[in-house]
């Protein structure tokens, strides 16, 4: 084995541990659930010293790596792109990897729960399958009629702009699991499915808009939306979810009436 090259940078003692960054103490309370141990969920709490640059995800990592390895949560990229770590932080759906601890009220315990409305499997991990089932039902892929073009499918920048907002979805389920209509019985398609239908319905290259509108004209489709704006508030990508749902409603109306 080759020896690791010596560092070329001389560090003064005390530097390199994040010493320049202010630290503070937090209390992290996590909703724990393990069906193999108990049917009841409970809260566990830890006192942690965290840095000003740390996010809720870093606090969860600290707990998992240094205090209790059984704490379970999903995370993948840890940079707000993969959409794995949506959770309910202080009662609001957010991505743990995009929520800085310093932006929360650190004088009170920080509450972390799994997103609501989906079956909890363990701790912060929920069964996302009902969510993805709705997503699959709206056919989130390009369907085009006629001959395939020899080159690319052209689109003007105005046509692209029409559905730009809804292309940002990362399928984290923060919106659907913040929707009180979805909480009741999980039958509603949910904001995320409608947002992703919107992305194709208003795409000039797609020809299956009518099929998607017909799917969302269902009893559990867009008409169950009560415009409470929970979804727009929860979206970590800032998608105007409620607006997208209204546009789909309008599209169904103008097609039928």
């Amino acid at each position, binding site marked *: 084995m080759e020896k690791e090259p010596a560092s070329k940078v001389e560090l003064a003692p005390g530097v390199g541990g994040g010493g320049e960054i202010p630290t503070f103490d937090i209390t992290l309370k996590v909703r724990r659930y393990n069906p193999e141990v108990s049917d009841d969920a409970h809260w566990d709490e830890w006192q942690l010293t965290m840095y000003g640059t740390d996010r809720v995800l870093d606090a969860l990592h600290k707990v998992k790596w240094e205090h209790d390895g059984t704490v379970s949560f999903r995370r993948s990229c840890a940079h707000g792109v993969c959409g794995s770590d949506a959770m309910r932080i202080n009662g609001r759906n957010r991505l743990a990897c995009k929520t800085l601890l310093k932006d929360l009220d650190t004088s009170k315990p920080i509450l972390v729960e799994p997103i609501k409305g989906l079956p909890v499997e363990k701790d912060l991990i929920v069964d996302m*399958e009902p969510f993805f089932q709705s997503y699959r039902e709206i056919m989130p892929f390009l369907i085009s009629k006629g001959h395939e073009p020899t080159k690319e499918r052209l689109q003007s920048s105005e046509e692209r702009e029409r559905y730009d907002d809804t292309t940002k979805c990362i399928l984290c389920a923060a919106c659907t699991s913040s929707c009180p209509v979805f909480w*009741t*019985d999980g039958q509603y398609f949910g904001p995320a499915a409608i947002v992703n239908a919107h992305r194709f319905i208003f795409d000039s290259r797609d020809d299956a808009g009518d099929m998607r509108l017909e799917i969302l*004209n*269902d009893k559990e489709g867009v008409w169950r939306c*009560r415009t409470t704006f929970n979804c727009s508030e929860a979206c970590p990508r800032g998608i105007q979810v409620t607006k997208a749902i209204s546009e789909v*409603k309008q599209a169904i109306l103008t097609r039928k009436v």
Partner: protein
Amino acid sequence: MATPTIESPRSGRVAPGYSRTQGSRGNFEMIAWLFMRISGAILVVLIFVHLYVNLVAGDGISGIDFGFVAGKWASPVWQIWDLTMLWLAMLHGTNGIRVIINDYAEKNSTRMWLKGVLYTSTVVIVVLGTLVIFTFDPCPVVNGVAHVADYCPAP
């Protein structure tokens, strides 16, 4: 050797209670949604004119008595006005409660019972109200005694 079949990923694994029953197509929910918006806009006008005419115009609130109502319903304009208001308000309200039941009841059997009560009471109120508007007699004769108000023709 038989080729082992690998199930497609997560096939049939949606938690029970989340799978939607198919075949609930039709435009009922869309029409209900549209009706709420249109009837709401009309009701704003109907109700505020109703309140103004009853409570503010003329003698105001002190002018309301049996004779006042009888006088209003002698005119077909107010008959139609009140009839429209009755029907729109009742259907608007019923649909609103229906939606709330759908949103808050978790079991289909609970929904069915609550909606049963709701629809029954709606029908009773709408039928009674319509009857009153059209069969209202300002000068009733009870047990052979005519309760004559000053606006009634002399017997």
